[in-house]
């Protein structure tokens, strides 16, 4: 069980309020991702849930019971840190055993759980090594192993993949996803990378300056961002945001159109000069200038498109997929 509820939670450091009153419910078994630019308070929020920071006011409930002043160890949560925070002088086995040793789990049970965790995480051959002798991905798995053996109500991940290289990151992303499917335990995952958020989450919480901008499933956020911030943050490459005449024609202050919803056509309503064309093989990202709409309009074309720097191009947006926003930046439906 691991339902976590935040009720009117605030956090201030001195006079600076980093988390204004905030309500959020994370259901049991959910994979919830906190995403936002750096400094938006997502790590602070995670540390508040973990109990490493005390909340200034409000309440944190874990499975319905108030845990606001419970010390971190007794909240039944396990955390994976950005730096992994492995104990360098202990072998992998002793690292994984440490939380159980502190909890007084019998030795035989400890060994059983270590074996199981090592098997699940491909660490069996490394149990007697020190963390210093492991690669980044292996250290990451040890940190996860140390969290698993506690059989926590929920896992907390604080940007766990940011120290890995791109290839490993994709691999670990899948492994964590698999792990969640297998354990069905609540997981809260903090990241600044919207790709991680989109690929892993059941529920995404978009944060800006401590405020929740929107909560929803990845596709909900993609299909109907509630405001300009979410619109610009979710999706890669970023949504084109256009102001002025073209928006006024749609009765909006700003309109947004995703790069993948603009087609390269023979004759369309918009036209411009291709600047940089990024050929990825599967897709081509065109940065189109001189459209009269915005400085650059990004377009996702097919991989085989033969356009180069300086070519003239004609574009057609898919009218039904245009997002409209008012002067306050809120969505108009």
């Amino acid at each position: 069980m691991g339902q976590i509820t935040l009720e009117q939670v605030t956090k201030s450091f001195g006079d600076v309020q980093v988390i204004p009153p905030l309500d959020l419910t994370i259901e049991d078994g959910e994979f919830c991702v906190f995403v936002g630019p750096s400094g938006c308070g997502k790590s602070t929020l995670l540390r508040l849930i973990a109990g490493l920071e005390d909340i200034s006011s409000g309440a944190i409930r874990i499975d319905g019971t108030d845990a606001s002043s419970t010390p971190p160890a007794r909240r039944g949560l396990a955390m994976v840190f950005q730096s992994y925070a492995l104990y360098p002088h202990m072998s992998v086995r002793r690292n994984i055993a440490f939380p159980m040793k502190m909890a007084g789990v019998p030795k035989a049970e400890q060994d059983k759980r270590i074996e199981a965790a090592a098997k699940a995480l491909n660490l069996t051959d490394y149990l007697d090594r020190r963390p210093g002798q492991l690669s980044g991905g292996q250290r990451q798995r040890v940190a996860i192993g140390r969290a698993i053996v506690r059989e926590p109500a929920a896992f907390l991940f604080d940007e766990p993949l940011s120290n890995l290289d791109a290839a490993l990151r994709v691999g670990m992303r899948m492994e964590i996803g698999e792990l969640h499917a297998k354990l069905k335990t609540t997981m809260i995952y903090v990241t600044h990378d919207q790709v991680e958020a989109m690929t892993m989450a059941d529920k995404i919480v978009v944060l800006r300056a401590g405020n929740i901008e929107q909560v929803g499933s990845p596709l909900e956020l993609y299909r109907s961002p509630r405001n300009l911030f979410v619109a610009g943050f979710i999706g890669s490459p970023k949504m084109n945001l256009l102001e002025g005449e073209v928006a006024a024609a749609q009765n909006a202050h700003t309109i947004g159109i995703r790069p993948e919803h603009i087609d390269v056509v023979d004759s369309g309503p918009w036209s411009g000069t291709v600047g940089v064309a990024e050929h990825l093989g599967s897709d081509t990202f065109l940065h189109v200038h001189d459209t009269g709409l915005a400085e650059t309009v990004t377009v996702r074309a097919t991989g085989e498109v033969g356009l180069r720097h300086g070519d003239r191009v004609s574009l057609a947006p898919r009218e039904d997929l245009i997002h409209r926003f008012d002067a306050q930046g809120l969505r108009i439906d």
Partner: protein
Amino acid sequence: MATQHSRSAARLMMAPAVILLLGWMLVPLTMTLWFSFRRYLPLRGGDLGWAGFDNFTRFVTSSAFWPSVQTTLVIVGGVLVITIVLGVLLALLLDQPMWGQGIVRILVIAPFFVMPTVSALVWKNMFMDPTNGLLAHLWRFFGADPIAWLSEVPTTSIVMIVSWQWLPFATLILLTAVQSLDREQLEAAEMDGASPLSRFTYIILPHLGRAITIVLLIQTIFLLSIFAEIFVTTGGAFGTRTLTYLIFQRVLESQNVGLGSAGGVYAIILANIVAIFLMRIVGKNLDR
């Protein structure tokens, strides 16, 4: 210029410094070795020729030898234990955020800058004096009879004085080690359910292991040769004669350079045994 040439040029340039340092070390060492085999009594006839191993046997068989070795070990060991235990505690304390941190840290280091002779005099006259010392006043305040520190518990007194001098050094090195500990490790341990005490034994202490061995090594080397503190306070009386002090007495008070030099050779051997022993521990600890 090719690497080979610049390398030999570098050797040539370094040669004067190396030769000077080598001479600095080798000349006294050779002289000590030379005198240790001579019967040399400056006020009683000067150099009286070869003595063979007489000086060496006389130095070891003298009734003062073993007690002096014992005193040396007690003082060195006592100071090491006190400075390391208190040093760890002080380092943890100074690592806590507090008001006036900068000033407090400077004050903690201050005793290290006081010359040994001066600090021994200060302790002898201002703290340990049986009639006017601060400690005597303190004792009387509680209705107890003041202790005549330097005659009743002379070795303890010297250990106290020397510990006071060396505690800042230990604290400073251990404080930098404490500060280099990754905060996330402590937080991880907290999440893992470790109490403050187990966090200390399982996380902080192993992290400090390397710094502690360094303090141990450096302090041992310096503590084996403490002299001023004994000279100023007890003058070697009441069983506070260390090996260093015994050598001093043989050479200057008994005016027997040969005998003293033989003691010096023993001291060199002892220091090297300790150094090799410590190097092996340190090496083992530093390898990780």
